[in-house]
């Protein structure tokens, strides 16, 4: 006789047995891209050391600025990166040269933090944006948000869940999962976040394709 569970309840991430990968921290916050201050719109994920990095990207001819910049980061670092910054609410797509500048500024802003916070000189921040097409990012708010985000980075379930919430647009629930398995006699862990509810029929390929 109880009310049926919502999707958010049925597909909620169960953290009880979760094992997050070592060496990564994450956070999510509201920086002002979305109008509603209760909705998170900026996520940051970084590693405490350089990572092998790979990506698959849309084959749409109108490639958004963050896609261009993420491909540049992978090419420049020869497959090495350390961080990811994502905003939701504005896609930074079809935004011309200013859009490219803004996406590069997001990457550079987190790179600056990585340089200051670690003796390793390796940087490389991938960038993602999602939301409305054809509008410029409120870049000052985002850059300020990236600076603020470094105070709340963490490796807890709560930190990863906030990062997952920061990816969301019309999604009705955050999409966060983990798994662990043995590889070469060692336990390895994975965490995954994704988002998407509409404009979904991906056909992605590697950056050099």
């Amino acid at each position, binding site marked *: 006789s109880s009310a049926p569970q919502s999707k958010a309840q049925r597909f909620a991430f169960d953290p009880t047995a979760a094992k997050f990968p070592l060496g990564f921290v994450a956070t999510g916050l509201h920086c002002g891209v979305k109008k509603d201050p209760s909705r998170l719109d900026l996520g940051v*994920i970084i590693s405490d050391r350089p990572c092998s*990095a790979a990506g698959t990207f849309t084959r749409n001819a109108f490639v958004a600025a963050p896609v261009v910049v*993420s491909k540049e980061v992978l090419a420049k670092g020869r497959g090495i990166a350390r961080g990811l910054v994502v905003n939701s609410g504005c896609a930074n797509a079809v935004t011309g040269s200013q859009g490219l500048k803004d996406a590069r500024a997001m990457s550079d802003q987190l790179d600056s933090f990585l340089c200051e916070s670690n003796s390793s000189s390796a940087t490389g921040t991938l960038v993602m944006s999602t939301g409305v097409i054809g509008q410029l990012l409120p870049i000052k708010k985002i850059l300020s948000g990236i600076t603020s985000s470094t105070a709340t980075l963490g490796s807890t379930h709560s930190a990863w869940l906030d990062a997952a919430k920061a990816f969301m*647009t019309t999604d009705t629930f955050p999409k966060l999962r983990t798994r662990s398995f043995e590889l070469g006699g060692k336990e390895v862990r994975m965490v995954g*976040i*994704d*988002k998407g509810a509409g404009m*979904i029929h991906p056909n992605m390929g590697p950056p050099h394709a």
Partner: protein
Amino acid sequence: TLLGMIATDAAVTPASLQDALTYAVDRSFNSISVDGDMSTNDTIVVLANGASGSVEISEKATPDEYIKFRDQLTDFAAELAQLVVRDGEGAEKFVKITVKGSPTYEAAHKIASTISTSALVKCALHGEDANWGRILCAVGYSNPGFDIDPTKVTVSFVPVPVDGSAELKLLVNGEPEHVDEARASEILKSEDLAIQVDLGLGDESATYWTCDFSHEYISINADYRS
């Protein structure tokens, strides 16, 4: 837009990580459809920092461990991809479409994609109408690169989870079955269901995940910019 990231503490060379991700995405995120539209921003990235202390994986140096890692990544990516379909705008059904009996994986994938994108198939799924003619029609115009033989095609509904009862065959070798509409209705009432198409032309197969089209989808997208 689809965005996703996977972070792991496994150690993998950059080139092998890219190959593993490309393989995984083809069988997961590139095998889902909500509304048939491709975004300007779709991106999936993976970061591997080696903090677990595991041996570094590479296709050439450690092929067995590479395959294990690649398959784990593929399965994990499919789990994440299916969450997107579950949360498709206005979606009330979660539908697994498998095309088998194909000469190539690519052709099976293309046919499954065509069925998954058909607005009429997706409306029928929403209405719980066992309209197999729309499924067959989509197969017929999918242009897979070879001639489909209509006399070899079999289409079935499969209950999910498999409840012990047999799949419901709608068309066998091109001949319409006498469909038990009550049984069809029972299968289609479930949130989860599977459609299976056997081309009878080979051994390759591919799977797609899609959802229905609902009134709510229109409501959400009629004023997205505002």
